[in-house]
């Protein structure tokens, strides 16, 4: 049911900034994502379900907009690696943060991808985007021709940034601590001794209370780890993706420049018979390159601003969430300390 989407005349009929990936369903090994978008006309919402393959279809079509001048200067939003319901260890490693938990972060990344596409002045005009977001039928699965763009997605996961890896370690340590605390808390219950003896009772009571304390510590650690993941972890993930996307764009531009140089030399060296043709080719290459540079400049500018904003937003969110958690925990510990002291010496 796929239409040809070479024309770039259409505009999106939904709001781009509040696209949501609300749910993920497991169907055997495949994950299906529910996407909700608000109609521009204000008359309601679109609900569609898509699989990862559908996302890839969209990405491919975006890449293959060859008629769009300077398309190669665009910094493309990047997709995460493919996730399945029962991912292998290798895939989990690739996914990093996104693999922790129940796919909430993964959904967030997909969400951000869609929002970035919808907000992009050039990309949003592609009809594929409209179809993806609004069509009740799943979009076609045909693969576009392999081109330069295909290198994009997988490479990101392999060249993980140091900072990202380190933070992943931090979060995993935090999770381990939470588990150990839960374990300790449970073990303490085994130490409760029955008996009338007041000292025994005092000791048992102390054990129970300590168990509660460690329960709180566990909750605190779990929250801390979650906050870390949802804010800074996600932020670092997107940041590393962004850097790669920019690099990819610059690489494409460089390739174009090399092509241009080649075309120039050819035009110079051409024998009179071929000269006109070579000149034509050179002119085309020049135009293409210039188009790319124009787009690239805008993109880089926009991109840098967006990166700073995103990182700032991430840090603020992270700080606020951790502050809240810390305050809650402080209150909790305070209460427990008072309760402890209140009990007879």
């Amino acid at each position, binding site marked *: 049911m796929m239409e040809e989407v070479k024309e770039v005349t259409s505009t999106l009929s939904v709001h781009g900034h509040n696209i949501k990936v609300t749910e993920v369903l497991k169907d055997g090994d495949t994950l299906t994502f529910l996407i909700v978008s608000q109609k521009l006309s204000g008359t309601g919402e679109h609900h569609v379900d898509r699989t990862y393959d559908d996302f890839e279809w969209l990405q491919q079509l975006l890449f293959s907009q060859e008629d769009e001048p300077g398309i190669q200067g665009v910094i493309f939003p990047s997709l995460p690696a493919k996730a399945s319901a029962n991912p292998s260890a290798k895939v989990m490693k690739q996914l990093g943060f996104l693999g922790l938990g129940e796919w909430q972060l993964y959904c967030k990344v997909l969400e951000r991808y869609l929002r970035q596409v919808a907000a992009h002045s050039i990309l949003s005009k592609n009809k594929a985007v409209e179809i993806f977001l609004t069509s009740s039928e799943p979009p076609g699965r045909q693969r576009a021709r392999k081109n330069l763009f295909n290198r994009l997605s997988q490479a990101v996961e392999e060249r993980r*940034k*140091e*900072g990202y890896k*380190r*933070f992943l*370690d*931090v979060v995993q*340590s*935090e999770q*381990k*601590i939470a588990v*150990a*605390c839960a*374990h*300790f808390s449970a*073990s*303490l219950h*085994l*130490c409760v*001794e029955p008996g009338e*003896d007041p*000292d*025994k009772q*005092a*000791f048992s009571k*102390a*054990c129970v*209370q*300590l168990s509660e*304390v460690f329960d709180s*510590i566990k909750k*605190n650690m779990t929250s801390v780890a979650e906050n870390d993941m949802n804010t800074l972890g996600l932020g670092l993930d997107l940041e590393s993706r962004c850097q790669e996307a920019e690099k990819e764009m610059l690489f494409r531009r460089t390739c174009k420049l090399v092509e241009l140089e080649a075309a120039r030399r050819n035009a110079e060296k051409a024998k009179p018979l071929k000269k006109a043709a070579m000149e034509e080719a050179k002119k085309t290459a020049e135009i293409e390159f210039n188009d790319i540079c124009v787009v690239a400049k805008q993109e880089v500018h926009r991109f*840098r601003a967006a*990166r*700073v*904003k995103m*990182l*700032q937003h991430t*840090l*603020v969110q*992270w*700080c*606020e969430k*951790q*502050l809240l958690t*810390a*305050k809650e*925990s*402080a209150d909790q*510990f*305070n209460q*427990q*300390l008072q309760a*402890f*002291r209140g009990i007879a*010496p």
Partner: protein
Amino acid sequence: MAASSDRIPPPFPDTEEPGVCDMADGDRDEGEDIFVICSNPVAVSRGVSQPDNVNEQPPDLFREDEEEEASSATAKYNGVHSDDDSDLFAEAQVEPSTDKVGSSARKELSTSSGPPPSSSVTQSPAAMQPSSSLQQLEEEEDEDIFDVDVAVTNPEKIGDGMTAYVAYKVSTRTSLAMFRSKAFSVRRRYSDFLGLYEKLSVKQSLQGCIIPPPPEKSVVGMTKVKVGMDDPSSVEFVERRRAALERYLQRVVSHPSLLQDPDVRDFLERDELPRAVSTQALSGAGFLKMINKASDAVNKMTIKMNESDTWFEDKFQEVENEEQQLRKLQVVVDSLVSHRKELCGSTAVFAKSMAMLGNSEDNTALSRALSQLAEVEDKMEQLHQEQAASDFFIFAELLADYIRLLGAMRGCFDQRVRAWQRWQEAQSTLQKKREVEAKLLWANKPEKLQQAKDEITEWESRVTQYERDFDRIGMTVRKEVLRFEKEKAKDFKGQIVKYLDAMLQSQQRLVKFWEAFLPEAKAIA
């Protein structure tokens, strides 16, 4: 006599249990007084019984009376009377026949199913039933203040190379008259502590006391320290040992009977102690192992003790169970501590990588953001470090201490079994001697008869004595167990409060960090 034994000593005017005795770590004080004033309510040392009294009266009939006498007479004071008495006491201590420990506590609690209090005329109300006298025991323990504070501080490496050792400063502050001055300190090394433990074990274990064990020897740890004291693991090892030695000493001095021991006093007071050479071969743990092995051997002996009091059996089982549980807890705490340390490490590495990123970023806003992130993470690492230490020192060490103490307690129970066996063996020897006498009578050999009679008399008194010993050990063990449980409940509570406090403080610091960081984060763009 009856009148005097009716009296129950009035409570001391300022006797309150202020709660946890908080010995601050010496190194952290920076000029503050290393002692925090507190009191360890501990049983009155009923040790200074008047041995003359005891020996005058025939053992059986007036047993209860003599105890009442001793208790009311001695219950009034706090600690040891004077040096004279303590010397007297010191001698008395070595002889197992002295009713030193637990004399006043033996209010019908012994396992001997003797006749009902026929001598009830002279019996004080305090000795009515076991439960109330146990209560009495507890009350008396609560009422009395005990005033000796010790601290172990300033570990210093003396010497170089493989003969190097670490010397600790042991400071004592006390108001007890039995010491030469109110505050004093000496330098001791680890083998001195071990030596003290061994001396105490040899003497006290016969009485059924729980001797607190010192921290174990560690060849690996010490070798590292000998080689150089700078790396963090050596520092941690020394600190761990210092803290453990301090807790060890605190437990020793808070035990009423042990405090009376002249070896303990010497340890605290004397400038120079003879080198405890025997400890080189025998570590604290080694000694404990010896006791355990011996006790196992005892248990495997064919004679099963005829336990007339199930209290001991039940307690022993409890102790074993508890030890198991504590070991399980210890495993969990160890894993918690290692994860915390891991978190420390990964936070530090993350901070560094963020700092590097910040440096290499040309966009100034981004660069600033990343640098600040690096700083926050640095501070977090500090915090995690302290939390790990807290987890460790508060809980892991507490559990380790109690596992050792429970082991010592099992040793006590075994001592009692051995006392019983000694008694049984003496009884069977006496029986044999009587048979010999009978045979001699039959064979009519008057010369040998006298010798046989003498031997019988001797063994009769031995039997009596061993029986008394056995009863007395039983009493002591009971008292010790009670005391142990009290201390344990208090100790654990104290540590939990300390831990909670530390957690609360670190959370509050965290809140401050985040509050400081928030405006910086907002100001980035």
